[in-house]
């Protein structure tokens, strides 16, 4: 099961940075490629991820299962795909109303990217919860997980900027990312049905102790 979680975290990391990089391309026709456009995008992604971490951690308190984990990926895919159809109209709407391209780009990146990025931010803490069995190994597990998901992010950045934009249109890449997230949802869903699941008490108890100790 651990291998599946790592694959999920890797794809999550890959998708986040690929989307962030595409964000610059999506906004440029309306808001330019000035430094503040990138500032807007990075702000929105960092903010969304921070909220996603918080929510993912909260969600992991309530009977974490691979099935629920699959729903996170499904939700990310469902919220990502509409960008293909609606980002143009949304940017036109904002461009006509917000004259200053700094706030225009900030608003546009917010409207376009907050929801999918918050959901993708939930993946990391949820993964930690799925993997950690005892407090002793929690740091080690979290370290490996950050390694895997950040490796995914770096490859997502590289693949998108070096190759994907040369081979495909932006909307095609967004569709591919959506398919990737759906595939991960399917993988998690199938694994939850057929894979071995640990009895709840075994992996919940030590963490509950730790929480008590901390409190």
């Amino acid at each position, binding site marked *: 099961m651990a291998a599946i979680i790592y694959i999920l975290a890797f794809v999550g990391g890959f998708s986040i940075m690929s989307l962030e990089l595409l964000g610059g391309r999506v906004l440029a026709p309306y808001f330019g490629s000035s430094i503040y456009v990138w500032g807007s995008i990075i702000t929105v992604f960092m903010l969304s991820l921070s909220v996603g971490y918080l929510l993912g951690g909260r969600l992991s308190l309530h009977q974490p299962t691979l099935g629920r984990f699959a729903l996170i990926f499904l939700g990310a895919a469902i919220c990502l795909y509409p960008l293909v159809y609606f980002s143009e109209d949304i940017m036109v709407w904002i461009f006509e109303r917000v004259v200053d391209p700094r706030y225009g780009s900030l608003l546009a990146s917010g409207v376009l990217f907050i929801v999918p990025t918050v959901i993708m931010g939930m993946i990391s803490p949820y993964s930690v919860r799925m993997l950690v069995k005892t407090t002793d190994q929690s740091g080690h597990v979290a370290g490996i997980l950050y390694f895997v998901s950040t490796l995914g992010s770096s490859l997502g950045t590289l693949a998108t900027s070096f190759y994907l*934009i040369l081979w495909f249109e*932006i909307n095609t890449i967004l569709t591919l990312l959506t398919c990737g997230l759906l595939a991960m949802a399917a993988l998690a869903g199938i694994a939850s049905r057929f894979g071995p699941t640990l009895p709840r008490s075994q992996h919940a108890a030590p963490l509950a102790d730790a929480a008590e100790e901390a409190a």
Partner: protein
Amino acid sequence: MRHRSLPGLTGLLLALALTALPAASQARIIHQENSLYSNIVIDKRGPVLCLQFSVRRDQRNQSCMNERKPKEMVFDYARMMMASLLIEPEPKRILTLGLGGGTLPMALDEIFPEVRQDVVEIDPAVVRVAREYFRFAPSERVNVFAQDGRVFVKRAATQGETYDLIMLDAFNGEYIPEHLMTREFLEEVRALLAPGGVVAANTFSISDLYDHESVTYQAVFGPFFNLRTDASGNRVILAANGPLPDRAAMAERAEGLADLLAPYGVEFAPLLDMMDTTPDWDPDAAVLTDQYSPVNLLQGR
């Protein structure tokens, strides 16, 4: 320790670079700054002042000015851009994207005392440097905007502005803004042109990008004049919002403009010979769009 050793290392590298390139050693760097968008370097060789956007020695100059003859256009491309006047000899409003040393807007400001110009430059530092070192001191008819060219064009189009001449000079050798080379951008530019108005684009004659850029202009404007100097790698595209004039009409306009342009070193006879509409590119190359515009990757090939 680290911050102390760095200047020493830079000095050593600079000394090495200077000894390795004796021809370049006569050029003296008189100003250098890292702006938000590029590394601005101004060097001086004899009376010639040049603006570059990188310290790399093979980097081509963006803009040069001979201080003894400040009006004279030093580069082929600047003269090629002025050939746009053969298509639109009496512009009333001019838009320029990309300032550089300000050569083109300054010349146009002096040549046409009635013309109102808008100049858009993304980097405020470039505007400052042009004023300080390149005698960019235009009349009050010239408005300079420090913003992204695409945003300016899109906004101007929604406000119903029109221009008779649009100069696209926003590319440096290092990085090409992808959103300034797409079909959608050129359609927005065309929408800003008055009937018969002209767009002049300073771009590149080499690399894989050539085919893609050519089919994109063709898709938006139809046939265009394609001026190339292969020795210097310069290419200027002159396209019109309407039919292109024939050679006889342009030769006649050249006569009328000759005296006005002579102080700038612009001679129309060689330019007329370069004004060719024959496609010399692969017509099957993909049109660049906002969805597909890997121009910096293509430029590297």
